[in-house]
């Protein structure tokens, strides 16, 4: 079982890396790239446990360590 976790900056939190990449995209001709936000993608290989348990555990992992909820949101899928 695999958990795919996406950690992204909350709306309103300045993302200087995203800004730099957006400027770069613009400078190489991609005028349609209006805004870029950079986040993290984390893949976790999980032991085979019932899916509801896995969801509970991964949520805990996000809250405790993977995301800092002061500035970041997270979402995940379990496959």
């Amino acid at each position, binding site marked *: 079982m695999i958990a795919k976790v996406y950690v992204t900056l909350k709306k309103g*939190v*300045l993302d*200087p*890396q995203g800004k*730099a990449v957006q400027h770069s995209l613009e400078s190489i001709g991609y005028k349609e790239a209006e805004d870029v936000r950079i986040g*993290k993608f984390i893949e976790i290989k999980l032991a085979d446990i019932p899916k509801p348990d896995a969801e509970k555990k991964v949520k805990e992992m996000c809250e405790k*360590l*993977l995301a*800092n909820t*002061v*500035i970041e949101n997270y979402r995940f899928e379990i496959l």
Partner: protein
Amino acid sequence: MKFGIVVFPGSNCDHDCYHVVKNVLGQEAEYIWHKETQINGFDCLILPGGFSYGDYLRTGAIAMFSPVMKEVKEFADEGGLVIGICNGFQILVEAGLLPGVLMRNKDLKFICENRYIRVESNDFPFTRLYKKGEVVRMPIAHADGNYFADDETLKRIQDNGQIIFRYCDADGNITENANPNGSLLNIAGICNEKRNVLGIMPHPERCAEDILGNVDGKRFFESVLSSF
């Protein structure tokens, strides 16, 4: 007075702190390895600067689960003095001992230079030998010093007088130009509500001796001594 200097894998200002405590202040100092699960007999704990765990995931994020942090939290809960310098500050916010978070610098660069900071409050164990409003100069050396907190938290720490140091110009004006990293309200250092835990991005331990050409940081440590 006995200082404990917590050493994480990747700490690199631990020796500087040890040196200042031991040789400049003439006090007792001891390193505390991050695996320790019992710490006794300390009057003040310092979480030094560096790159604990290589700054993986987020600065300070992995270190907050080092075994010693449980002890640091208990020590702080009991009113013990805790100082987090630079990476130590980042660890304290991640561990929830201080509010907010330190994000990547606004211009994405690692900045290593001397900066002016204004002492906002001196009714406080870590700054009592400075004058309120005094402008001091200290080196900064960080890539993630951009202080952020939500509006509510920011208002709360302002109202409670928890903002202790702010980046300013040589005359003490808090301006955007004087802000090296994009920190909200030019914040360079804050304390907790109980005023026994302090986080500071600049390095007072790097400017506490004449030979280094700047002694503005010496009174920081002397303040701690005098309040003991």
